[in-house]
């Protein structure tokens, strides 16, 4: 499990987990699960497009998650946010269907992009993952106070000069960055499990924002480590364990909060 070829996997997965856990804290308090689900999924055609044009897949992912952010913010100005999210998502996925029909790369590649391929992380992949992760965390640190204020109470934020619309756009951009970083490792569909499960459990355990955010990062790391270990042992896809363990963490958090309310 800790052979040479697995070292990069552990490093990359840990980086992804920390970032997803930290960003996930804001996903949960903003109630932005749908956006956190839609951005990775709509970024995934970017990799197919990049493959078609012959550029670095990461560039494609960044461009498409950027398009996702633009689509959601633009459409949300005229209608409701969930509709904006759903429609941007299907538009970008539609493009994905087109690109996939144009590439010769087919089955394995689609599967890896959707569900991840943790065992194939090369040295060259680690650099961008670390860089994008660092940028995402740095943005969260810089934005922490205004973003927290705007998430908890948009009205109070506006009164103090924090634009809710700007915070929404910045927040979505951070999710997009984290997405582009995590997608090649854990896949489009499960970046999101890592953003939602650990953070919701952490929120149930503590009321203090900073502790909850750090705790979320920690739970996320443990989830990913356990998932990789289980995947290695069973030879089943890592996504199964990430999704399952995230659901368990959420359930545990809910039970803890429930027990706390009843003074147990």
């Amino acid at each position: 499990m800790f052979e040479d070829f697995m070292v990069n996997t552990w490093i990359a997965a840990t980086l992804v987990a920390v970032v997803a856990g930290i960003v996930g804290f804001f996903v949960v308090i903003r109630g932005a699960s749908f956006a956190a689900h839609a951005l990775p999924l709509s970024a995934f055609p970017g990799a197919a497009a990049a493959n078609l044009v012959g550029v670095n897949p990461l560039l494609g992912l960044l461009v498409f998650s950027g398009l996702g952010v633009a689509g959601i913010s633009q459409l949300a100005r005229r209608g409701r946010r969930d509709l904006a999210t759903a429609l941007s998502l299907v538009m970008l996925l539609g493009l994905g269907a087109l690109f996939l029909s144009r590439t010769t790369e087919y089955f394995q590649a689609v599967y890896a992009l959707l569900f991840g391929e943790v065992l194939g992380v090369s040295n060259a992949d680690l650099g961008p993952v670390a860089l994008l992760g660092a940028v995402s965390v740095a943005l969260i640190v810089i934005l922490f106070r205004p973003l927290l204020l705007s998430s908890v109470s948009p009205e109070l934020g506006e009164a103090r000069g924090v634009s809710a619309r700007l915070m929404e756009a910045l927040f979505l951009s951070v999710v997009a960055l984290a997405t582009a970083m995590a997608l090649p490792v854990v896949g489009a569909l499960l970046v999101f499990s890592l953003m939602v499960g650990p953070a919701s459990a952490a929120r149930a355990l503590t009321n203090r924002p900073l502790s909850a955010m750090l705790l979320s990062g920690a739970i996320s790391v443990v989830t990913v480590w356990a998932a990789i270990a289980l995947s290695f042992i069973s030879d089943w896809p890592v996504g199964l364990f990430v999704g399952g363990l995230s659901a368990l963490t959420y359930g545990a958090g809910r039970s803890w909060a429930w027990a706390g309310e009843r003074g147990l």
Partner: protein
Amino acid sequence: MDVQTLLSLLFEPGFFTSEPVRTAAVIGAAAAIVSGVVGVFTVIRGQSFAGHSLADVSSAGGSAAFLFGINPLLGFLGMGVLAAMSMELVRADRASERDLVTGVVTGAGLGVAALFLYLDMTTSSTTGAAVTVMFGSIFAIPASLVPLALLVGAGALLAIGVLYRPLLLSSLDPDLAAVRGVPVRLMGLLFLIVVALAVALSAITVGAILSTGLLIGPAAIALHLAKRPGLAILLAAVIGVAVTWGGILVSYDSYEWTGGRGWPVSFCIVMLIFVAYAVVAQTGPARERRQEHPLPSGEKPHVTSAG
């Protein structure tokens, strides 16, 4: 230019005689009508995410069907209904909590999909299960699937017909509905199960992850154009069928323009939906009102009840 030439320009030869096209048109229309009708309620209730999640989770059933060689529609259906029930059974009173539950169920369901697709891949490497399940392959639907698809569609429409008044009331104003004795939670559960039926139908048509387009797109367009729910439902069904048939036609014709490679039907349908929505959202009557009173996320639109 005479009519004959114009028609043959519009419809490439063989369009009306092709068996796969006919099957695609029938199943596509059924999926579009059911999705349009169910979609209007989904949009009013602010459950786009749940609708999308049901599709995602149902893909686990679709991929299991590939593995065990059972009817894919039944696979999508079984998993979708299971997901609908688990989402409703976890008690969540606040909207943000409901979102989280939806997200967590989605994550777990997708994990299961990952497993089945992986097993599909390792046990039979020739089938393009991942692509078919996620993006659909409408021209490859066997004609034998038509009766079951129509049955599922009819069941969903019948359920909506029976539940119409209490469902509408509990969607527009849950508190008022509760006061009038409507079992709001039961309505929520039954409704999600109907959404699962609609989603399963469109999953075999445009694929699991794009079924959201047929569910939300036509309904959102219709609710921009018509404020009365009854009219919006009718309009959504019509728009749904129009974009689906339009998409099938464009895709079929595109084989000619692109030298036999063609554009996928899912892409064509989704693009038509998106263009229509973009146009309507720019010009629709709802625009000024929305801008004066921007609705916070999760809040219901002001739809006036019909009569």
